[in-house]
């Protein structure tokens, strides 16, 4: 069924366009005064003001340290393997490299690089990591003046990642091991 929209003929006053002019001016003036005098502009001035990033947001992946400020990464290279855009590049310590700076780890990477220009923030590295050493964090606007600058190394990633004390896998393992030393085991 077609609905015919009724178009009333304009009255003589309306034909002068004056009522429209007045109402148009009212609307624009209201918005003008609201913005200029009451500071009600809706603009978010980006670099100074930023959106609040929601929980679970997938930003840039950074390496994290454990509660004792030690490197969690053990250089297993699973993330390097799983990384779809091949943004991660790990240099393992090798047979005569430095040992890990924490207990319960055999080694830590000599160098850990993420090319942030390649990274697609997919989160597979976080998912695959057995040590919970890499997390997608809340940074989303990474900038630099050259391509080299956008390759983040281990030092930078650790610094940006900060301490992640929430998951203390090896502490719990250690406690479990200690408890098992005495018999019977109380779990």
């Amino acid at each position, binding site marked *: 069924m077609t609905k015919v929209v009724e178009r009333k003929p304009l009255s003589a006053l309306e034909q002068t366009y004056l009522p429209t002019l007045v109402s148009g001016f009212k609307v*624009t003036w209201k918005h003008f005064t609201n*913005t200029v005098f009451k500071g009600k*502009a809706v603009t978010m001035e980006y670099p100074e003001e930023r959106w609040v990033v929601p929980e679970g947001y997938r930003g840039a992946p950074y390496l994290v340290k454990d509660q004792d400020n030690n490197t969690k990464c053990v250089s297993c290279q699973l993330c390097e393997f799983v990384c779809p855009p091949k943004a991660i590049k790990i240099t393992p310590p090798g047979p005569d490299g430095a040992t890990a700076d924490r207990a319960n780890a055999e080694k830590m990477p000599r160098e850990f690089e993420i090319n942030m220009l390649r990274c697609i923030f997919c989160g597979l590295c976080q998912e695959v990591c057995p040590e919970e050493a890499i997390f997608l964090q809340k940074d989303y606007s990474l900038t630099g003046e050259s391509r080299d600058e956008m390759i983040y190394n281990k030092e930078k990633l650790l610094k940006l990642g900060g301490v992640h004390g929430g998951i203390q896998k090896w502490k719990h393992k250690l406690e479990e091991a200690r408890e098992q030393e005495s018999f019977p085991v109380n779990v």
Partner: protein
Amino acid sequence: MDAIQYLSPTTQFVLFSAVKILVAFGVVMTFVAYAVLVERKVSAWIQDRVGPNRATPFFAQYIPLLGPALVRLGIFQPMADGLKFLLKEDFTPAYVRTVYFWLAPAITVIPALMTIAVIPFGSTLGNPMNPMVIADLNVGILYTFGIVSLGVYGIVLAGYASNSKYPFLGGIRSSAQMISYEIAMGMSVVSVFMVVGDLNLSKVVAYQEANLFHWMIWKQPLAFVIFLIAAFAETNRLPFDLPESETELVGGYHTEYSSMKFALFFLGEYAAMIAASAMMVTLFFGGWAFPWGGGPANSILCGIAHILCFIAKMGVLLVLFIWTRWMLPRFRYDQLMDLGWRRFIPLALANILVTALVLALISR
């Protein structure tokens, strides 16, 4: 200054004219740049936005207190805009008619700037023999209309030269629109000159300078309304920006233009707005005269105040132009033609008739 006295009158005239032309040109160009800024700011404020507030030249930090406020107001934005236009790649598409393509922007700008020549923007600066008008023509208004009507050729030519559908449509619309509104505009001022009895714009100002109540707007309000609306159409401003109409014709006549050639169209539009405002101030708002009157200046200070008064009146009209753009939607093409031919031309004719009758009755 004494050295000037020994020059022949012709040399003096040439010298003064050259200075006036340079200064007027500079002022108009500055006005164009800042009219664009005001346009952007006002539009932003009306639309609940902030507008340009980032352009920060290196010296901005050395301005005490005011520096950050000026940056927030975007005072330095026009400089950045101008520089951007100069440095952009000047691209000429392969399919255009090159000669006309290059000619069109110039034809748009030059008439807009030439109109300024006959407008008395001040009384005198010291020397009463040296009025503040570049060319004190006896046929001032005829010159203006002759020149203004050339402006349409730039747009039509741009539409034709671009060899592409949207500019072409823009050009066609512009030719019809500007020609029909030119008639209404011309007719509306006839009644003004009938009242004044002279075509010289300086005489028009002299007629109104006594005080606020001698301004022509009180005697010819209808002529002012018609002139104002026709001026909107002549300068392609909303609600009559059919040649440009971004929403339907991409950019209208200047779709294919880039860089400085586009900037010239832009400049032409704002220069035309300024010329139209200056014309309205001269015809209907007493030109450079103060609202409380006071006659031609007898000191340099008073002369400068007259020029500032003129600029202030012009500024108010410019804001009116700008505000209207963000207030009203675009007219439909047939509504536009209807308004021009069936409303304003008869109204203007009636106005002339009534004015003539009243004048005849008064002089009896």
